[in-house]
């Protein structure tokens, strides 16, 4: 269960969006500049909206009315950034394990070997990020977010920088993730076609407003 309600004004741009999803995957769609990434940043706590509320799995991450605003490191979101942001001075394995030591010990955790095998990272562990192809970097970024043991995965255009063959490959990895680990995913894309396959709930953003909604709990899973 994901619920995002935000009002945020930045210069000429105003975001006023209310999105919720009952299913395991929510997709945010829309042209560039529609406010998709801003919405993800609000969920992650990297942008603080003037007013808003974010709730994930019954945990309130932000509520400006109640004065709740968890620090990004306490929100337990696994954020796969559009520009990936792999740590260039750490090899793949250290990148993957970065969030591990900060994750709460008590909760059931994502198994390292399972995640590595699922994402096909076994052969890459000792490589530097600079030595990876685009698709490999993308998988490492997804693995790093996943292994931080998050409550929710945020993926910003995980397919945009890839060619068609790679795109299908990553798409199927994300499908596997969604089904193998019970972690809700918020997925941002400018292409409706690729999100339809993944998400049960879709919100189309246009100039900072929700222009269209699909799903809304209509379907659970795919």
């Amino acid at each position, binding site marked *: 269960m994901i619920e995002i309600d935000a009002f945020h004004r930045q210069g000429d741009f105003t975001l006023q969006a209310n999105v919720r999803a009952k299913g395991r995957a929510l997709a945010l769609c829309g042209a560039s500049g529609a406010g998709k990434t801003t919405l993800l940043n609000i969920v992650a706590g*990297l942008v603080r909206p003037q007013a808003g509320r974010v709730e994930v799995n019954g945990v309130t991450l932000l509520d400006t009315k109640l004065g709740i605003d968890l620090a*990004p*490191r306490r929100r337990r979101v696994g954020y796969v*950034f559009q520009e990936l*942001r792999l740590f260039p001075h750490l090899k793949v394995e250290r990148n993957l394990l970065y*969030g591990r030591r900060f994750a709460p010990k008590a909760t059931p955790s994502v198994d390292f070997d399972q995640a590595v095998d699922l994402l096909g990272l076994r052969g890459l562990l000792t490589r530097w990020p600079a030595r990876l192809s685009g698709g490999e970097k993308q998988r490492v970024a997804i693995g790093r977010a996943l292994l*931080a043991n998050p409550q929710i995965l945020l993926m910003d255009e995980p397919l945009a920088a890839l060619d068609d063959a790679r795109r299908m490959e990553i798409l199927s990895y994300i499908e596997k993730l969604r089904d193998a680990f019970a972690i809700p995913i918020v997925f941002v894309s400018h292409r409706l076609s690729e999100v339809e396959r993944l998400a049960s709930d879709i919100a189309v953003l246009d100039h900072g407003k929700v222009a269209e909604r699909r799903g809304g709990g209509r379907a659970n899973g795919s």
Partner: protein
Amino acid sequence: MEQGASLSAILAPFTPQEWTAILLSLKVATVGTLVSLPFGLAVAYLLARRSFPGKTLLNGIVHLPLVMPPVVTGWLLLLGFGRQGPFGHAFEACCGLVFSFRWTGAALAAAVMGFPLMVRAIRLSIETVDTKLEQAAKTLGAPSPLVFATITAPLALPGIVAGMILAFARAIGEFGATITFVANIPGETQTIATALYSATQIPGGEAGAARLTIVAILIAFAALVVAEILAARVSRAAMDQ
């Protein structure tokens, strides 16, 4: 031999007093650099990454030793860290640490004089580290001090090393603040620079002055070479990215 010194006199072994001055210089510069490093990192981080009231003032104070006459800095150190000074008194009372007319005072003077150079270099390199990487570390659960230790500092390492080398070299050459604060006592506070000054003040001291000059040049040159090697290694690493 009226002018200058003969070659054989220059090539003669160091006198015990010269050795003492050389080793003391290295000790003072090393201790001064290492002790100021944590403060340099903290101030550079604050200036590069945080905004707070008084930031301009802090920046100004840090840079003062660079623009003030060194004698003024030395005199202020004497007022503040002399045995009667408020800080000097406090340090002596709490941990028995005395600065005035001791080698520790020379290290303090060296640290203060090198501090602006160290902070500048570290600040500039912290500013080149992409804040987006720091954000990523935060979303992965890292608290701020660990974000700095695991992401910012390693990526800013070339600048940190450069800052240390600049501060070290400045410390080796430090004269005005040192001689004002802790005088020029052989075996306690006499460094290469102040020994060189003494040598030029006595008849027949030219050979000693020449030898110390060569040592000072060699140390400065070695510092530059180390800086160059590190810079080359860093740019090679950057090419790999």
